[in-house]
């Protein structure tokens, strides 16, 4: 239940009252207005408690591991949703509330925002109902706009194919330095990770260092 608020106070003043940002003069004025309305004090405490909970349990900013990839997936979902066929020539029975009348309902805004959030997160994180290998393809994103990335499942090869076209060719005079390595144990982010030669498991061959979102740095050991 919400308390009635004195009409002498505007929203800006009320917000600053809840946030504890009134000047001493304003505070005296507000205290006078609120005298005899203890319910409002409890509402303020409830709002402060809620704000504290949100600040405690939710990070002020949340950066996904690959923001560009995350954005591209959301855009893919939006494109997929907007390309769905729309029913035409559907007759609406008389008396059925119109879409616009729904918009005016007080419960529509929170329900719609919750539904939108649920749809996006279910699409991105939820289990997919097509476990058939031939049906599923990789979700891909190429940061370079000149690169055309295509993913498909090849039934004949029984393989997922991620084909990248438009990449800069490797210069012909460059030698590709390749390795034959065995598994290494993990390292803390930013700490070097040592890979051993497959032919001699006690011989450290390559050291890799990488930070979150940073390019790997590879160093060959003599």
């Amino acid at each position: 239940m919400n308390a009635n608020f004195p009409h002498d106070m505007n929203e800006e003043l009320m917000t600053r009252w809840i946030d504890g940002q009134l000047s001493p003069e304003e505070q005296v004025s507000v205290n006078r207005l609120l005298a005899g309305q203890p319910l409002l004090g409890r509402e303020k405490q409830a709002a402060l408690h809620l704000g504290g909970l949100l600040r405690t349990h939710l990070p002020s900013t949340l950066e996904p591991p690959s923001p560009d990839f995350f954005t591209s997936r959301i855009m893919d979902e939006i494109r997929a949703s907007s390309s769905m066929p729309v029913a035409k020539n559907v007759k609406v029975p008389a008396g059925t509330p119109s879409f616009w009348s729904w918009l005016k309902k007080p419960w529509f805004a929170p329900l719609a925002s919750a539904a939108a959030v649920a749809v996006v997160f279910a699409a991105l994180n939820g289990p997919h109902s097509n476990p058939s290998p031939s049906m599923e393809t990789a979700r891909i994103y190429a940061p370079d706009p000149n690169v055309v990335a295509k993913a498909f499942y090849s039934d004949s090869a029984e393989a997922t194919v991620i084909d990248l076209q438009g990449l800069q060719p490797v210069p012909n005079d460059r030698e590709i330095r390749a390795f034959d390595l065995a598994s290494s144990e993990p390292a803390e982010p930013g700490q070097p990770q040592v890979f051993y030669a497959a032919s001699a498991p006690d011989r450290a061959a390559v050291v890799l260092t990488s930070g979150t979102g940073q390019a790997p740095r590879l160093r060959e050991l003599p």
Partner: protein
Amino acid sequence: MCVFDVRIFKMKSLLLPLLVLTALHARPLPVSAQEKRPPEPSANAPADAQVQGLLFFAANDATAPAQEEKVTVDAALLKSMDGKLKKVFPFSNFHLIGKHTQKVFKEYESWVVPSKDLCLKIDSRGPAEGGGVNVHLQLWQDTKVLVKSDSVIRPGQPIFLGGPNWRGGRLIFVVMLKP
């Protein structure tokens, strides 16, 4: 409705999406994942899978490029992979030039490095329904990420990443579950 009611109403309308978000993400986490930071790396860090990364040079020329290091792999596997690659990429020869067998850790990023020029970062997203492992992949060439992908690596079903051209052929990165 007075202004105070409006503000409370707005706050409550924000609560509903937050509750939905919380519910969607309220999956039980393993005990180790609930800690603020992963445990110290150890020689027995838990892994979701073991993968093999193979770097091929696809070309119509039968001559393999000169390599400082001889790469060895099971002959049957090589023959099987050669057949699969020929069904996708229009080249007659697939020369194996690099290999790296690597565990995919549960709580750490894993790197598959068959070459200094092309390497693959793998983040495990846990076992996949129907077998295999869900992964987030990033294919890197030097300091540049070529592609990012959410994929599933299933037993017997490799992922082929068609990379840059080189010397009239093409570099192809293959990642597969190690049997």
